[in-house]
């Protein structure tokens, strides 16, 4: 099942979703077994921002019907901390590294992209555009024009594949996808979490420290499939599908509607080795099921 994605060789089509697997922490917990049985064909880092962030105050988690909600708030060591501490460790993983970055304005994104452009260990960059542009107030990924402006600024900065990660909280996700394609995105990934909220069972105040959060897991799978399908119909560039994938059949379904790779997020929390199982199950999927017809493996 080895696949090529934007020129990167991968052993199979299953990767992790950004922010749902910390390979460095996992090495402390599982020691050598992590590298020996690494469950993903590529490793996507948690979102890196320019400045370090401590993230949102707890509680950060809420469990719901068939899934969960988080308001982690993108804690990370910032660009320099990442380059100094994390990159060397992640470069030693047995799989290619995709770095997910986010900026609060175009200039921040440009700085991040420029910094990673020169690092050989970085196979591709994923742009998290699910945040408001602090200058315009618009969520970059919800507005086709914002995405075009962003890519116009950063596409020239690197030859590395640029994956734009779309937000599902938009009226017309395929329109954003088309705009990203036209502005030079190498690939797209979706869905990010869906905006939600929960109240403290006793006090009635917002439960999450971050007030609202993002829903993920099986509860969002049907929504993810609809959006991935619509986006794959709208663009020619490869698409990484994700949202609620827990089995090989789920992965296969995303590929059946056109995804080239599938990312596993929340299911890894139920089992860190889920990616490995899903890849194996995917390989066993009956050929009866419609298989991808798009020649979109970049």
């Amino acid at each position, binding site marked *: 099942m080895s696949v090529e994605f934007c020129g990167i060789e991968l052993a199979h089509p299953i990767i992790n979703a950004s*922010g*749902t*697997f*910390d390979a*460095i*922490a*996992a090495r*402390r*917990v*599982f*020691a050598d*077994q*992590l590298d*020996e*049985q690494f469950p993903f064909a590529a490793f996507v880092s*948690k979102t890196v921002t320019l400045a370090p962030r*401590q*993230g949102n*105050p*707890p*509680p*950060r*988690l809420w*469990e*719901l*019907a*068939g*899934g*969960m909600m*988080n308001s*982690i708030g993108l*804690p990370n060591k910032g660009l320099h901390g990442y380059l100094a501490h994390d990159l060397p460790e992640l470069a030693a993983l047995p799989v290619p590294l995709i770095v997910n970055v986010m900026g609060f304005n175009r200039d921040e994104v440009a700085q991040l992209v420029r910094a990673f452009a020169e690092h050989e260990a970085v196979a591709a960059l994923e742009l998290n555009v699910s945040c408001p542009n602090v200058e315009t107030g618009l969520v970059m990924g919800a507005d086709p024009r914002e995405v075009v402006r962003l890519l116009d600024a950063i596409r020239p900065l690197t030859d590395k594949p640029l994956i734009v990660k779309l937000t599902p909280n938009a009226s017309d996700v395929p329109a954003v996808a088309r705009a990203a394609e036209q502005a030079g995105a190498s690939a797209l990934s979706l869905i990010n979490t869906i905006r939600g909220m929960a109240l403290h069972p006793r006090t009635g105040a917002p439960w999450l*420290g971050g007030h609202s959060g993002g829903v993920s*897991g*099986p509860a969002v799978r049907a929504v993810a499939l609809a959006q991935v399908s619509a986006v794959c119909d709208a663009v020619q560039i490869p698409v990484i599908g994700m949202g609620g994938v827990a089995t090989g059949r789920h992965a296969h379904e995303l590929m059946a509607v056109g995804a080239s790779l599938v990312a596993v997020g*929340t299911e*890894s*929390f*139920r*089992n*860190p*080795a889920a990616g*490995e199982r899903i890849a194996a199950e995917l390989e066993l999927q009956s050929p009866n099921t419609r298989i991808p017809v798009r020649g979109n493996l970049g």
Partner: protein
Amino acid sequence: MSATAHRVTAPFGTRPVPVTSRQHHGPYVVLACADTAGPRPAAGQFYMLMGTRWGGGEDERPFLPRAFSVLRAPAGTSELQFLVEDVGPGTNRLSELAPGDELSLLGPLGLGYGGPREGRRALLVGGGVGIAPLAIWQDQLEGEVGVVLGFRDCNHAAGAALLGNARVATDDGSIGHHGLVTELLEDELDIDTHAEVYACGPPAMLEAVRLLCAVREIPAQLALESGMACGFGACFGCVVPTKSGYIRLCVDGPVLDARSVDTVVFAGGGH
């Protein structure tokens, strides 16, 4: 945590294990299983547990696995014991498991207790279901150990039988000392100051222990709780505030040196 804090690494991935027994101790259930594929854990470490009949409870939960301190892991066996208090849909499902049922398990996880420093006397302080990690610690510690446990009432105090030589306090005085377990702790410290305190229990109790030990300059290792999704550092969901910022309790805890925190009472922590 102190340099002595102990982490046994875990096999990668969850593994199914058979439940071998279920015993009731007042409102608590002791669930035993045979973990032939895993290592013996360190005291204070925990496992993420999930039953095969997960989901469909209150609010269509549980969905995620649940964290449980290991209660006991008898040396030379493959047995793991957990102490479960039914407080919601996850613990409810787990409390129903019976011998022959399957349990899905990940672990051991986290950092356990470090041994007493400078020949100090170990003093175990537990509240409610928080007695769990103290039992395995008592099993492993050598020499005389002090044990003081607090419970709501006589019914809950049935859990005290899981530790040896425990002095018990109850909120309603229905058994043992009528009052707080920290009063028993003060007693013990009055007798022997050269102690290292190992505590686990509700946040308010831990905070009282922390303050007391801070004032008396007694080293204390506190096993905290927080909501967890993964247990292995993947989700960044289980953070607790420490003097050096937020840390993930699942990988940098659950046992923390009392001096590393300003308080253990914070939103989203513990019961």
